[in-house]
């Protein structure tokens, strides 16, 4: 059996498990092909007000610890609060490099980027943010990225010559709490600076294009000192990212907001309990973000929320890996994950088994805004009303 067949078989098996489980839990209507029964989305004024929030788990999560039966206890709020309103895609396959920065960049460009995951480089292909801003002539304040600081400082803007200066505003919340060398600028907040689980040390990064802390703080209408004071009440870097994301939604209300969570990647230390804590925290954060969307007048009823891990992690069965700890084998399960979609363009309470790819995200979100991610290599996810 060749490798692709094997992936497909394993991935399909996993998706079947997940679908059976979800049907039992939520009574979801099984909509293997729902595009034919969905209304075509009304273009025009609705598109102008449309907003999209994307949440990626930039720490790779496995089915076993999330949507598979044995993982359900770790994601109670996604299952109980979000799933009944969501379309759930059981097979999202990532065929690229399984490193978090390069994989998230691939999600954002719709092309499997091939650069060294640890290099301080921009994505080569135009990003979703650039398609969005340039086609719709939107200001930088209308597309934001909240990301961990391990190399993600360049995620908002590609090196593609046609889109110079059209990237997203990227905020790396931890940088607001750290000196330029990465050390803590405030005592007692070191636990909020963890982000380099893939390698014990990070590549040095050039921060020339980064917005100064004071400027970020002023956009968020918060002094750096107040920010630090609030941060002292938080338990993890991802809770800090949630705080910042909410602040951006309240003060700036961008149409496109991308949040990459990273606590889950503590799995690389081999502590299974800490990995589970990361998943539970991500579960809470997703539920809280949806609540925020539904409580902010600028977002309520006009925002699609898309949640997906960047990829999975190694399966217990592959001798080349060490179970949940890493994503080194490139085996089928480490490449197969899921996506949950909520919002006005989504048919609620449906399960979609058709395999999609991670790189389908960008052309789809672009299309939700009525623009064309013309260099992306992914396909439209038509089940989102397209």
């Amino acid at each position: 059996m060749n490798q692709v067949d094997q992936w497909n078989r394993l991935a399909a098996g996993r998706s079947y498990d997940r679908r059976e489980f979800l049907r039992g839990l939520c009574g979801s209507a099984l909509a293997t092909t729902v595009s034919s029964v969905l209304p075509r989305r009304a273009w025009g004024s609705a598109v102008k007000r449309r907003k999209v929030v994307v949440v990626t788990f930039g720490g790779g999560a496995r089915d076993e610890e999330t949507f598979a039966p044995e993982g359900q206890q770790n994601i109670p709020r996604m299952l109980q609060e979000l799933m009944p309103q969501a379309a759930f895609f059981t097979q999202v396959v990532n065929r690229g490099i399984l490193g978090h920065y390069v994989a998230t960049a691939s999600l954002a460009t719709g092309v499997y980027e091939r650069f060294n995951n640890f290099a301080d480089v921009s994505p080569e292909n135009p990003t979703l943010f650039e398609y969005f801003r340039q086609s719709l002539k939107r200001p930088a304040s209308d597309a934001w990225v909240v990301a961990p600081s391990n190399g993600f400082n360049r995620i908002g803007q590609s090196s593609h010559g046609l889109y110079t200066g059209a990237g997203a505003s990227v905020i790396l919340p931890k940088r607001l709490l750290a000196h330029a060398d990465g050390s803590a600028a405030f005592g007692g907040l070191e636990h909020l600076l963890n982000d380099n689980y893939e390698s014990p040390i990070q590549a040095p990064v050039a921060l020339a294009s980064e917005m100064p802390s004071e400027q970020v703080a002023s956009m968020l209408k918060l002094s750096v000192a107040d920010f630090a004071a609030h941060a002292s009440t938080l338990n993890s870097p991802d809770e800090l990212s949630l705080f910042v994301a909410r602040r951006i939604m309240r003060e700036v209300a961008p149409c496109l907001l991308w949040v990459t969570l990273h606590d889950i990647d503590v799995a690389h230390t081999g502590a299974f309990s800490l990995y589970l804590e990361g998943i539970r925290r991500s579960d809470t954060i997703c539920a809280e973000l949806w609540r925020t969307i539904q409580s902010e007048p600028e977002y309520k009823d006009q925002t699609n929320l898309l949640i997906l891990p960047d990829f999975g992690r190694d399966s217990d069965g592959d001798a080349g890996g060490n179970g949940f700890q890493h994503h080194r084998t490139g085996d089928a399960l480490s490449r197969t994950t899921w996506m949950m979609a909520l919002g006005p363009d989504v048919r609620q309470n449906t399960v979609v088994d058709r395999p999609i790819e991670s790189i389908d995200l960008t052309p789809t979100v672009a299309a939700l805004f009525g623009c064309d991610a013309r260099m992306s290599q992914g396909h439209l996810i038509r089940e989102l009303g397209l």
Partner: protein
Amino acid sequence: MIGDAQKPSSLATQQLPLLRKLPIPLAAIMMQQIARADRLFPVELQELKRSLQALASPHSPAIEAAVRAFAALQLSPELQHLDWATDPASFVEKMSAELWSSGQIGAFHDAAKLLVPATLPTQTSPPIKPARFVTIALDRRLSAESSTPSLFLKLRPHGTFFPNVKDEEPNTLGEWLSARAAAAPAPYAHWRLSGEADRSPSPASVVSLSYDGLKSTRQQLLARFNATRNTDGASGPEGLRHTLLQLTPEQIGLASMPDPVLRAFAMEIFTGGSGTQLYATTFVQWTVREVLRRAQPQTLLARFTPRSEATSIDLRFTYPELEPPPDGRGSLIDAEMGAYLSYLNLQRLPDEGASFLVWHEGYGQALLIGNGMPGNAQSQSPITLKALLRLTT
């Protein structure tokens, strides 16, 4: 023939003509093993020997298929011109990055799997006596927050659960290990691993490693991580990997360990394992995996003790001597997964008839896998730990 005590350099010279005929990716990974020949356990050296012999006279369809699969990998011209023979480790590092970025990593892993049969003995060798036995003990300080937990759920389909196990003697497991080592003495055949230093000394025929016993080594390594990251012009993860490839056991305080194979093994637990320098539970799980995979011992006794609480990695690097307070609750979850992964690693060894026991000394719950132990079964009757150790052998 390849002698067991051969120096890597002469082995490399001897095998180079053969390797030059192989596809480069295969030649490079074989050369990488040859370069480590003086760090290999006897079983590994035998495997290497068998693989080289099989490759020298490829008559089995499996070997031919493996060679074809390696030959089908496309390497860039730059990589093809690099010298894989002199520095195979760096070459393999670069090749791995290229295989990922060109989408061929899966094909590479598949090709490597095709090679595995070549490492196995051709005739059926006599079963090892006594049969392999792995025992995992969970320290009583590994405890759930409130009520008594129901342990070992992931392992239950594979064996029989004993909820009422008493240990009536002070050193049951230590004596069990010593007796097995005395009955079948062999190099690297009997191991004791733990988060903490042994409470009772092990006989010389038992290899013993602990997270606490290697404190100075892991702290010295953390200090090196810190120094590397604070070096001007440091090149991040690649620079660190390069530094680690050059590292010798003596540079991180392992000079006092007399056995060079063990010295290198101990170093590689910390340089090749992620989190082994930070958490005792990770150290034990990863070392069990590596001992089973590499030394293929007859007896392994591993003890999970509490790991330190989650602490900023940055702090651990900045203050390598920091040993944060224990987290018993998290450690229990980690150790249960550690026991499950240990069982999977035992399953990967070629022989049948092995036994696996996991026991929590505080809750008195145990699970036994092996001869005569049905899966998904439970035995309510009280039993002693000593009796349990005899049930499958």
